[in-house]
């Protein structure tokens, strides 16, 4: 069943679009270009490999934001199904996430091409990148479950979420560096799961280092916490969603 749902989501997304898959890779690139032009002059001078630095941030942030908004609507969008057939509802969120994950992987490939163009040195350490991909996938699923449940109850949550995402974007140090900031402010960034994932990417790709054990534990903790919250909501409200659609 999961397979069929995933197929449906893919078909719906790419049907009747000539650019199709290409477009979903092009749009982050355009965003990269815009940011490079706008911020390159201000922040680009002190940061080496600024394009790669930016791309690390955009790649991760876009994945999260795409996942969250697709997940948020996935349950409501399938209301016609789950009010008529008794199906496990989390499958809708999982399926929506597969779609975004696929996009992410494509963008990741483009990212590696950019790394090569930016003369970043590749090493076996790049294999570490699998780790944040896994933790962020789980984190995304959890956030998607929570949001999709909230979206059923409060249909205007998407506006609030949009505002929050804007805030998060500026708060994730996508186009600037937090190195020169006071320690207390840096602590705030350390609590931001998206920033932590971006930082992991940068550490591996730009510094050629393997992040510390504590970083790994923190990422895992974020993922588990988000997933647990989502699973809890789904257990609790599983048979109640129906009353709200």
């Amino acid at each position: 069943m999961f397979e069929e749902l995933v197929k449906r989501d893919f078909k719906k997304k790419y049907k009747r679009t000539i650019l199709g898959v290409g477009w979903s890779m092009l749009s982050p690139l355009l965003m990269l270009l815009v940011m490079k032009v706008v911020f390159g002059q201000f922040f680009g001078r002190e940061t080496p490999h600024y394009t790669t630095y930016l791309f690390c941030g955009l790649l991760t942030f876009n994945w999260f934001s795409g996942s969250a908004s697709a997940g948020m609507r996935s349950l409501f969008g399938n209301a016609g199904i789950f009010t008529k057939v008794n199906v496990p509802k989390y499958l809708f969120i999982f399926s929506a996430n597969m779609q975004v994950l696929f996009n992410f992987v494509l963008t990741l490939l483009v990212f590696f091409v950019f790394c090569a163009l930016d003369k970043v040195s590749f090493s076996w350490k790049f294999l570490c990148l699998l780790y944040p991909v896994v933790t962020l996938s789980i984190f995304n699923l959890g956030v998607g479950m929570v949001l999709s449940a909230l979206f059923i109850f409060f249909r205007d949550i998407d506006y609030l979420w949009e505002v929050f995402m804007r805030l998060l974007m500026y708060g994730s140090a996508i186009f600037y560096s937090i190195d020169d900031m006071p320690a207390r402010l840096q602590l705030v960034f350390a609590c931001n799961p998206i920033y932590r994932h971006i930082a992991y990417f940068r550490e591996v790709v730009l510094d050629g280092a393997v992040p510390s054990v504590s970083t790994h534990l923190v990422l895992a903790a974020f993922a588990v916490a988000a997933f647990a919250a989502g699973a809890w909501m789904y257990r609790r409200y599983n048979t109640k969603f129906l009353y709200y659609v």
Partner: protein
Amino acid sequence: MCDTPAILSCDNVSIRYQVGDFKSIGLKEWVMRRLTGNYKVVDFWADRDVSFSLDHGDMLGIIGANGAGKSTLLKVIAGIMEPTKGRVVRNGRVVALLELGSGFDGDLTVRENAYLRGALLGYTRKFMDEMYEVIVGFAQLKEFEDRPFKQLSSGMKSRLAFAIASMVKPEILILDEVLAVGDGAFRAKSEAKMREIIGGGATTILVSHAIDQVREMCNKVLWLDKGMQVEFTDDVKGCCDRYELFLKEGST
């Protein structure tokens, strides 16, 4: 056979809906109403203390006027909703056909929808590969199979839904006004198919406003009125007569 447990039983099932301010108002509105004390929720019992039990091979007809709680009861039996009070015991796989034609995706083709629906009903891909031709043949949609679903008429949609659902061999089959769809020819065909499924030992629940159909096909009948259980009996004929009398009295 006599001492086998009932394949499906409902004990004092009650279902409460809440109506009022709680849905589709959004977070801002919800907060405002909570603060101003304007938040009103009214309970509404769709079903109250409904009890019945069915044995292997039974066919139950559920009758009652609109709003009697029939569809809600079916949703509980299908496991889509939980009863607020009471409990439902199912000793078999349930396949429910509720409001046919809905739950399909308008942008996908007939073929894609068939596979999706099949998957939702728990069919394996292999099973669908084998049965697909039979399904499309039965629904008489062969020439439409690559058309987007939204271009189909509602009768065609229901036909496809029925065709898919009837391929499975469920222990318990739930039909909500299914047989009322389709033209005369398809109706005859689907009734024959229904008999085949019942003959295969499935326990079937049928909700219908076509009282003659209930009289003809069912061996037990449950009469609901405004959520209350009026009768549950195997005296189908007697109950249908009383129901018809009740309808007549109501309209005069």
